[in-house]
């Protein structure tokens, strides 16, 4: 399967920018903002590469979060006590907010008196909801695994 490198690069750049913007909102220090942008870019690069390889969104998001989690743990001497927060901030661009909105909008639509295809609306809404739950679960598990493994080693 061929990979669209331009798309991966695009997602990497905008993943980094999104993480940087959220880093300012989360009041990360100026030095941490650079790490945050790098975490966001890494996360989106891995996820996009996974999606290009034909992986599911959940598997790609899990791999991306796992790699970000490992990287922040490996760089803990440079990053300091904020490494877990940085990992979370870096993975924020992968949180499926758009899917969540579509899922709830679908549920709102189900109550409309003029709805034409209630079955397909319900199924679509359910699919979006499941994708939100599974993707957030995958991101959080991927991020937590390196920390949990390190705790076991201690």
């Amino acid at each position, binding site marked *: 399967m061929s990979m669209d490198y331009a798309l991966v690069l695009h997602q990497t750049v905008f993943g980094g920018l999104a*993480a*940087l913007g959220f880093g300012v909102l*989360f009041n990360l220090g100026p030095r941490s903002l650079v790490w945050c942008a790098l975490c966001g870019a890494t996360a989106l690069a891995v996820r996009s590469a996974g999606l290009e390889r034909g992986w599911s969104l959940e598997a790609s998001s899990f791999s991306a979060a796992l790699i970000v989690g490992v990287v922040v743990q490996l760089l803990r001497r440079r990053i300091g*006590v904020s490494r877990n*927060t940085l990992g979370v901030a870096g993975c*924020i661009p992968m949180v499926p907010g*758009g899917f969540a909105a579509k899922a709830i909008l679908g549920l*709102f639509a189900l109550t409309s008196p003029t709805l034409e295809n209630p079955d397909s609306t319900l199924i679509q809404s359910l699919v979006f909801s499941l994708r939100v739950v599974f993707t957030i679960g995958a991101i*959080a598990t991927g991020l937590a695994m390196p920390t*949990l493994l390190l705790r076991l080693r201690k």
Partner: protein
Amino acid sequence: MDRFNPEVKQDPLEDIAMLSMEFGRWLMECGASGAVVDEFVARVAAGLGADRADLRVGYASLAITVGRGAEVATRMCKVGSPGVNQRLDQAVRTLAQQVEQGGLGCAAVRSLLDRVVQETPRYPGWLVDLAVGVACASFGRLLGVDWRAVGPVFAAAALGQFFRRSLARRQANPFISATLVAFVGAVGGGLGARQLGSHTVAAAMTAAVLLLVPGVPALNAQSDILDGRPTLGSARIVWVAVMLVFVTAGIWLGQLLLGEGR
């Protein structure tokens, strides 16, 4: 190590309990997970002279039992609205590590904690507004928003963040505030995108409100459950779900107004 020594003047356990929880409260309000709160509160309590500290981390309150020799004290405190403030989180953790080394009394630690809380810098509001605009415009591109809609998404999200700060200053209910901000962001982003001839107006409306998606609490909820705190994790999940419903209500009202998304 037994820290109990009756020859040395020690702070009352009640003071140790309240001050240790104060660290936990700040960490909770800055967006830390339950495991982090538990760890740092225990380190502070140990540094202040407690032999043991058992913390219960709830969504809206903390309860702690600290002990020293045969003495035991249990106290509880409220936790305010959840937020994310990484620099304050880091400063509180650094101070906790310093306290853990020992040698500081409760009065000195309280004074240091007050100073950390007051002096930890924040970015100016206008910079945060612009950064949120950049973040949402980038999110828009990740969601497939076309280039014509990027500018409107940036402007609408920045305006939404400005509005959110204004509502927070007035201590508006966070859920009602989320609906209002989502409505303003969605309408602003949608109108701007439509005026500029974008073909992705509905996606632009969604992208402009992604500043409201509670990503950190959502990830913390999962971490809390994985760390063996299902009660705290479940409470966070409920908060996240209700917040998403209120945010989506704002988008829905915006779509009704603009006739989009049908």
